[in-house]
């Protein structure tokens, strides 16, 4: 993360798109920011959290997106500027308060960041959250670059405050995780808010909501009017017969392709940064004398369909293209935009050197899927789990969830038969354990348990549904980059907090069988899991096993910080029989394979968890230095 975040106004610094959004929010004078982590949104609040104390802003990791949303919404009710951030699917979790927020509006500027993962780099789907704007009557703004992301964020706080209405900033992976030069502006100080009682506005009972609904529609038409003058929308080179409409990020791709074919000064480009609602007057102005229009937008034809409606309503005869020429699935790249523009503008492929197809170079390479790190406690749990299951000779269904442990879906473990959404493991087990005779094992991470795992576990106790829940407690939210959560004892801004233990929650809601295990004791853990499974079979009740050891990346970085030497393991090649068990059955990625199939532990990758030594049948693996007490304590 950049240390340049707090540099003074007037300087140009390199920031990641998410850092730029954070800076824009600080320049807008936010007093409050909340989020639940999720790629590609995480670094916005992570950056703010780092500087929260210096800036005097409250910044928090909330338990889930709904809570994050409500907290920021509450702050904005009190008249301060507030920011909440989430990945696209997070807005599904927060959809309930989202819908209400448009009815009540807000007093302080309220910006909801949805970071859409177009291309599904790190997500279960690629939903287009601009629909939420249309659905909820909340305007959606989309930057095209990191630099614009900063300025746009700042500007839409004003927009939100002017209309006393929430606004959505939609960013995508290629803006959030792009870096570019950012010209910094002045910082604005946070302020204190005050809640002004007004039951007719804040109490959404039917009688009030019925009166708020026409007011909402009235606000919406004012917003529809205002986006025509929104400074980030613009028409370049008006008057050409073919017009390109570039929405959000696609503007950069369009400009680069037009430059490549020497048509940047020739073709009319309507750049739209407020994609919901579409700026009607600008559209009319840009297309009224055109013959053909191409709408370039990622995912769904939201702007395209609106423009088709507008030209029909206005009686303009123009052919509107969109998803007939631009792919609907996946992210738009320069290649894909170039292909679309070439067809639309009728120019030859040869005008773009990198579109020539006659120089394919390709070499076949084995795939490299992401994998659990060396020393990951999840791998140890999975190994023990498989051992328990094979000892009991049962064939359970593994209900998976979202986190690093989802990677357990791959061979050799294959312990994720489902992965739906956060909390869906325990949730779906509530049905599957009733409608089948198969043993059900829900596998969920600690952060995910706090986020969405508690209500379905209460449900299982209440309805007496027999399945095993394994909570993988690695003391962090690892997948998204190690954010603290309610179980870690620390807040986003580094303050000490109460540690909330998953097994205590399980106990308090009435789970009768609870065990806490150390997964690195492979045999013992296998026995304990087997015992829990037997309890479920005999008693027909739910059970919980908490597998407690820290994420290996945290341990490695703690070791570096505290100057504790990692007891890296090594293979005695005299003893190794090339049985392949450590690298094919246990599958630690630090273990490389020599030409004679014997194992070799890469000392730059090993973090000294010691599991491979337990797995090796001929005791060929041993630590290079004796692991001390200090070292063992790091894993708690």
């Amino acid at each position, binding site marked *: 993360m950049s240390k340049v975040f707090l540099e003074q106004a007037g300087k140009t610094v390199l920031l990641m798109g998410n850092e730029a959004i954070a800076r824009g929010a600080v320049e807008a004078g936010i007093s409050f920011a909340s989020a639940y982590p999720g790629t590609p949104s995480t670094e916005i609040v992570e950056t703010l959290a780092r500087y929260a104390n210096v800036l005097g802003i409250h910044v928090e990791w909330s338990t889930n997106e709904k809570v994050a949303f409500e907290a920021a919404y509450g702050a904005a009710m009190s008249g301060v500027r507030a920011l909440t951030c989430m990945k696209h699917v997070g807005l599904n979790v927060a959809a309930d308060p989202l819908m209400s927020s448009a009815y009540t509006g807000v007093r302080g500027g309220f910006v909801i960041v949805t970071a859409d993962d177009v291309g599904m780099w790190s997500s279960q789907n690629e939903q287009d959250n601009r629909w939420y704007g249309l659905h909820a009557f909340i305007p959606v703004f989309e930057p095209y670059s990191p630099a614009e992301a900063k300025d746009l964020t700042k500007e839409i706080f004003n927009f939100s405050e002017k209309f006393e209405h929430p606004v959505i900033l939609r960013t995508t992976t290629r803006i959030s995780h792009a870096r570019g*030069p950012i010209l910094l502006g002045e910082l604005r100080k946070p302020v204190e808010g005050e809640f002004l009682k007004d039951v007719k506005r804040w109490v959404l009972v039917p009688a009030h909501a019925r009166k708020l609904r026409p007011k909402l529609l009235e606000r919406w038409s004012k917003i529809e009017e205002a986006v025509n003058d929104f400074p980030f929308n613009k028409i370049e080179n008006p008057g050409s017969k073919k017009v390109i409409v570039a929405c959000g990020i696609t503007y950069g791709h369009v*400009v680069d392709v037009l430059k490549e074919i020497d048509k940047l000064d020739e073709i009319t480009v309507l750049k739209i940064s407020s994609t919901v609602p579409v700026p009607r007057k600008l559209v009319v102005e840009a297309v009224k004398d055109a013959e053909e229009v191409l709408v370039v937008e990622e995912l769904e034809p939201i702007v395209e369909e609106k423009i088709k409606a507008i030209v029909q309503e206005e009686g303009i005869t123009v052919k509107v293209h969109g998803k007939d020429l631009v792919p609907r699935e996946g992210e738009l790249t320069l290649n894909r935009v170039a292909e679309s523009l070439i067809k639309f503008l009728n120019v030859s492929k040869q005008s773009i050197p990198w579109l020539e197809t006659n120089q394919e170079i390709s*070499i076949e390479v084995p795939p490299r899927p992401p*994998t659990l790190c060396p020393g990951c406690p999840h791998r140890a749990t999975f190994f023990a789990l498989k051992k328990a299951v094979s000892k009991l000779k049962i064939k359970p269904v593994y209900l998976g969830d979202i986190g690093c442990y989802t990677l357990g879906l791959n061979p050799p473990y294959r312990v994720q038969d489902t992965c739906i959404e956060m909390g869906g493991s325990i949730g779906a087990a509530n049905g599957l354990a009733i409608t089948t005779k198969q043993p059900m094992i829900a596998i969920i991470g600690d952060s995910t348990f706090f986020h969405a795992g508690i209500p379905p576990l209460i449900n299982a106790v209440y309805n007496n549904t027999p399945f095993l829940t394994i909570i993988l407690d690695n003391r962090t939210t690892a997948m998204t980059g190690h954010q603290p959560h309610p179980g870690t004892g620390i807040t986003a801004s580094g303050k000490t907090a109460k540690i909330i233990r998953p097994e205590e929650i399980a106990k308090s809601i009435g789970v009768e069988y609870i065990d806490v295990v150390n997964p690195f004791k492979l045999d013992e853990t296998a026995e304990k899991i087997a015992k829990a499974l037997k309890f479920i079979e005999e008693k027909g009740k739910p059970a919980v096993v908490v597998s407690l050891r820290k994420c290996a990346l945290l341990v490695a970085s703690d070791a570096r910080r505290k100057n504790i030497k990692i007891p890296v393991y090594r293979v005695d090649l005299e003893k190794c029989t090339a049985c392949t068990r450590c690298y094919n059955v246990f599958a630690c*990625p630090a273990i490389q394979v020599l030409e004679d199939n014997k194992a070799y532990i890469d000392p730059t990758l090993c973090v000294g968890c010691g599991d491979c030594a337990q797995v090796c049948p001929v005791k060929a693996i041993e630590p290079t230095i004796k692991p001390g007490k200090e070292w063992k304590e790091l894993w708690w």
Partner: protein
Amino acid sequence: MKENRYKNVLAVGVGGQGLITFGRVLAEAAILNGVKVLTAEVHGMAQRGGSVVTHIRIGDVESPLIPLKGAHVIVSMELLEAARYINYANKKTLLILNRRLIRPNVPGVKMPKMSDIIEKIKSSGLKTVVLDGDKLAEEAGSYVSANMVMLGALLGSKILDGFVKLEDVEKVISRMPEPWREINIKALKLGYSSYSKAATSDSD
């Protein structure tokens, strides 16, 4: 003319090999030189030991993504990844490769030999320079600095002359805390000076 408006640098490797830092340092150096730059990088799931790529576009550009066949240079921290992303190369692309092979964590995976991959890449006719990045990094003080060795080699190739200056890269690195500042600068310089040696011994 068009050719000289910008340079596309594609950096590839395995999650954890320091590609994000590679891109960040290079981009900050471009800004110190008053040149526009955009990068695009991979966070999240792929960082768990998966295949990762950072796009760095320096000069007059608006999109952060390098098109397929559009890289001026590909810097690779690992050989399988060099082969995987070779579809970003065209006839003129320069390849700067680290001599390192990391086995994908897939049970029973068939691994090609190091020499075979290098041979195959070279037979594509592209200008290819291979360095011992990890060894040089260790010489500089830590294997972790292999990314800075490769960055040094990139600058040593002179392909970014007029866009990024070596001294600006050093300035960016010197903002890092010790011991990394010293180790990384050493690694950078070792990479820089090793490039021409590697280039002459490798040329065919």
